[in-house]
């Protein structure tokens, strides 16, 4: 294999040529003849009864083709949107599953809830007509504040969920944990908020659909991370269009971060209405709509307690969390704060006893669902915050306390007390390397130097673990998932020797067209420019589960490897025939079949040609063609882990934080393309720092209006907020997938909030600040400093 393009090579991204030259094709770029344009009228109220909707004036507006309301869907017997994961509460009862009508019927439940769809000859005409729709709302009190969602007087979001409780779920044995706490030498307690975030993918959500009256076929183009799953949901649960009559295409997609996994009202309506309108329909969200209606992320209120013995060994961990679901249960919402959160609470540590209780709440806010890391950032933030707090309280060095409690490398596979079994890992060398690169030893000198400039310098650790590569189907099935989580691949050679690889994963920024091609090149020796990775179209790719949960390489890549094995096995038969050798003697290397111990060889391209032009062919036991399919269901999750160290300076006069150094050492298993991995880590760190220092979805606590509803008020992290990152790897290959790979897509975002906040607390501790919530904005930090000064004065 040429090292230049195989596994481990920093190959420039093939897809970037079209992205950087403006020739990418996104949903909104589609030229559809006779297209109409949809605009959705959204609720301006957080909670109101719809007394009436009068569309008569709007229907007469120029260019209007059709207007639909929730009642039309009821009349057409359209199903509601679904939550695909059933979580059983602590009494074994399935979670409360309130109805989720595609468009509001008689009640609106958040600002942005969909009230009507206007289809017109142009976007502007649709919008003009929307202004002419008269909706008579009876505005009701709304439940906005998560901490008050379960209070007696709080307005109920759905009658099906009394007291706004979706489930009261637990893992672990509380009595055992309580007993361990009773014997503890030290208990650290922590209250924290995991702030609500808005994903803000660069490309807003968009959909377009076309109906072919002749064949009864629908084609839906959607900004989806998982087109097959979207088709399955629309077919089986919502619209009832048979799967074979619905083609879903997710072309180039400009970022998702989870927000494009889910099945939303918008694409559902665009698809449904296409046949009624009789012309194609296009819709693209405006940025304000994205803010209001994309599923938000995080939003937990948590109380945690850690019990330690006198030497700092963790004895037990107790966590109570209230998780916000928003106004409706989105596609994967229920699983995020349970199976993707509480099962991660062991972190990298041997904590023998863990109990977690999670209560999911409904509020009159946008639905909350998986967002980059999904549950695992929340878990890491709890663990890594409380560990650093315990270290400070017990006056043990933060790295030392971590090291004392790391799962030893000899203990793998390691069964945690919270269901997961970690397959592999070796944590101490990771933190050692991180401390070396970050020059931890020199920190106190740097702190003193900063002080001489009037700055407060702090350093913070975050040693994370994540379970990704979602997921073993049997396991997730037993936990209530409505789908399996295998992945598929098809390798289809053309007679001339080039190859198309169909994957069920979907690339929306991850660079699969490059990474997967490197795999094929490495395994089959086909030159990179002879390989095409095909994804995102249910008509051309085998059924697959899509891209999220850092699964594409670990699961999808493994499926590709399995398919290459089938190609090689078949190729050997053909090659043996061509070389008049026995199959057992044929070896495959660097794209060439050879007879062991001879100089006889035949290149793969020739074998492929023979398979399609089988004039001289082992017909007796071999079918013509070179086209193989594989499905791969992982044996376990994969468990990337690492340590990040953040060093920052705070200006105590203004409260402004500047990150001055950031180190991340990761174990991602084997790495296919280090450049792409670095890109993923950079982006992940930036998103996590965004959460820690800048980003917050803020609703008015009474009216439920989204205050941070534009980039004027929602602070995105920007390039000038960051130093250059120092990255490194300490690899333990994954033992159960053929590539030995783990996942790298979410790690940065999972670990970094805790690294930053631990550094903030470390910087502020000398001046008496006890706790700062995320985001540690300048205002927030300044107020915390003021508070500490007031307390000191009293």
């Amino acid at each position, binding site marked *: 294999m040429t090292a230049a393009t195989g596994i481990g090579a920093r190959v420039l991204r093939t897809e970037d040529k079209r992205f950087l030259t403006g020739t990418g094709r996104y949903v909104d770029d589609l030229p559809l003849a006779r297209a109409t344009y949809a605009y959705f009228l959204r609720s301006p109220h957080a909670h109101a009864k719809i007394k009436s909707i009068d569309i008569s004036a709007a229907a007469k507006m120029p260019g209007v083709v059709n207007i639909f309301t929730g009642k039309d869907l009821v009349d057409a017997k359209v199903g509601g949107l679904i939550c695909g994961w059933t979580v059983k509460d602590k009494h074994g009862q399935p979670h409360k599953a309130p109805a989720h009508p595609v468009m509001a019927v008689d009640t609106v439940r958040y600002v942005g809830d969909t009230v009507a769809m206007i289809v017109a000859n142009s976007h*502007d005409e649709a919008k003009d007509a929307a202004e002419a729709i008269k909706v008579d709302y009876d505005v009701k009190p709304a439940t906005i504040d998560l901490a008050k969602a379960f209070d007696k007087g709080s307005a109920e979001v759905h009658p099906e969920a009394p007291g706004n409780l979706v489930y009261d779920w637990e893992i672990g044995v509380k009595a055992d944990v309580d007993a361990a706490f009773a014997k503890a030498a030290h208990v650290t307690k922590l209250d924290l908020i995991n702030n609500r975030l808005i994903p803000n993918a660069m490309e807003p959500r968009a959909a377009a659909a076309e109906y072919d009256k002749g064949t009864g076929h629908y084609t839906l183009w959607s900004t989806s991370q998982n087109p097959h799953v979207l088709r399955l949901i629309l077919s089986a649960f919502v619209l009832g269009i048979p799967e074979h009559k619905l083609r879903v295409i997710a072309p180039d997609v400009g970022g998702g971060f989870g927000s494009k996994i889910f099945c939303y009202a918008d694409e559902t309506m665009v698809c449904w209405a296409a046949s009624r309108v009789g012309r194609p329909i296009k819709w693209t969200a405006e940025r304000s709509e994205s803010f209001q209606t994309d599923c938000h992320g995080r939003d937990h209120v948590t109380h945690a307690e850690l019990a330690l013995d006198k030497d700092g060994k963790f004895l037990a961990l107790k966590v109570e969390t209230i998780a916000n679901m928003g106004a409706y249960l989105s596609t994967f919402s229920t699983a995020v704060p349970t199976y993707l959160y509480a099962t991660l609470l062991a972190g990298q540590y041997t904590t023998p006893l863990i109990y977690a209780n999670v209560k999911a709440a409904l509020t009159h806010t946008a639905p909350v669902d998986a967002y980059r890391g999904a549950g695992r950032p929340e878990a890491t933030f709890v663990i890594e915050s409380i560990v650093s707090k315990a270290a400070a309280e017990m006056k043990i060095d933060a790295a030392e306390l971590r090291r004392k409690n790391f799962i030893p490398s000899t203990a793998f596979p390691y069964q945690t007390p919270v269901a997961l079994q970690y397959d592999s890992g070796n944590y101490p060398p990771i933190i050692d390397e991180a401390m070396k690169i970050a020059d931890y030893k020199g920190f106190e000198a740097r702190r003193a130097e900063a002080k001489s400039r009037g700055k407060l310098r702090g350093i913070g650790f975050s040693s994370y673990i994540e379970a990704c590569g979602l997921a073993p189907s049997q396991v997730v099935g037993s936990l209530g998932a409505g789908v399996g989580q295998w992945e598929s691949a098809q390798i289809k050679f053309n007679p001339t020797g080039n190859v198309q690889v169909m994957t069920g994963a979907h690339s929306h920024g991850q660079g699969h067209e490059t990474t997967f091609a490197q795999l094929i090149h490495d395994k089959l020796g086909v030159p990179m420019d002879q390989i095409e990775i095909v994804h995102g179209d249910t008509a051309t790719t085998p059924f697959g589960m899509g891209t999220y949960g850092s699964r594409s390489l670990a699961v999808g890549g493994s499926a590709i490897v399995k398919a290459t094995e089938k190609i090689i096995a078949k190729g050997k038969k053909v090659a043996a025939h061509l070389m008049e050798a026995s199959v057992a003697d044929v070896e495959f290397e660097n794209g060439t079949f050879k007879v062991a111990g001879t100089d006889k060889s035949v290149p793969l391209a020739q074998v492929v040609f023979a398979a399609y032009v089988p004039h001289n062919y082992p017909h007796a036991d071999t079918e013509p063609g070179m086209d193989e399919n594989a499905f791969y269901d992982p044996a376990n999750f994969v468990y990337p882990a690492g340590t990040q160290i953040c060093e920052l300076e705070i200006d105590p006069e203004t409260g402004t934080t500047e990150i001055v150094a950031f180190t991340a050492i990761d174990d991602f298993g084997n790495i296919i393309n280090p450049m792409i991995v670095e890109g993923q880590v950079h982006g992940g760190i930036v998103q996590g720092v965004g959460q820690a220092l800048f980003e917050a979805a803020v609703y008015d606590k009474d009216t439920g209006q989204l205050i941070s509803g534009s980039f004027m008020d929602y602070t995105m992290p920007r390039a000038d907020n960051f130093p250059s990152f120092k990255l490194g790897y300490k690899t333990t290959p994954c033992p159960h997938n053929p590539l030995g790979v783990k996942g790298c897509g979410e790690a940065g975002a999972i670990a970094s909030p805790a690294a930053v906040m631990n550094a903030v607390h470390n910087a502020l501790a000398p001046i008496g600040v006890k706790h700062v919530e995320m985001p540690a904005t*300048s205002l927030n930090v300044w*107020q915390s400093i003021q508070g500490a000064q007031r307390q000191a004065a009293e």
Partner: protein
Amino acid sequence: MYDFAYHRPKSVADAIGLLKSKPEARAMSGGMTLIPTLKQRLARPSDVVDLGGVKELAGIKVEGNNVVVGGMTRHADVASSAEVKAAIPALAYLAGHIGDPQVRNRGTIGGSVANNDPAADYPGAVLALNATVSTNTRKIAADDFFKGLFETALGEGELITGISFPKAEKAAYVKFPNPASRYAMVGVFVAKTASGVRVAVTGAGATVFRVKAMEEALAKNFSSAAIKDIKIPADGLNSDIHGSAEYRAHLVGVMARRAVDAANK
């Protein structure tokens, strides 16, 4: 955006003619504020009069002791102007820290000052340098120009043709940007000109304002130590998710001291 008629006159006279003949017409300079407003359907002008073709409005001249910046002059041109950098480097610095490169290459001083966004940067310079705003009909002193939230002394159909800034002996602008928008959450422009010391604060209140107590202290002793005990009352200051009124009041003091130190460098 609602439909409107578009005009691109070549002279101020033609522009005024259009604005006067169409009561619902709006002038457009860089369009950096106007166009987003139109897109969000917050304004519905019948006509948009684009001043981009009016050559006489753009450009920078030094006239005696003053730097005169034409109304259509883009922020990027002020930031990179050798004349401005030589005469009032703080003004070039301010212009170079407005928004992002795209905004600086489109946005204009006339548009910014006419719009009088409470968080805009230029009003700080106009007021602190005691500049004079020229319109097609008159000259308006800075102290008389900024009236309130998005409110100025400009009348209907009156256009800013240029702004004349007296050269400063010492001047500096220090901005605490809003973390999200990067407009000024608090911006303090400190200037020592022939007419005395002025301290103008933008971002913190409904409109730009002067801090007389600081001006008096600095007139006696132009050093940050001279103003370190001057507290700005939080009453009436802006308050939002990025900064409470108390925080803004505090930042006025910090930014003022830093501006004085920068001016003394």
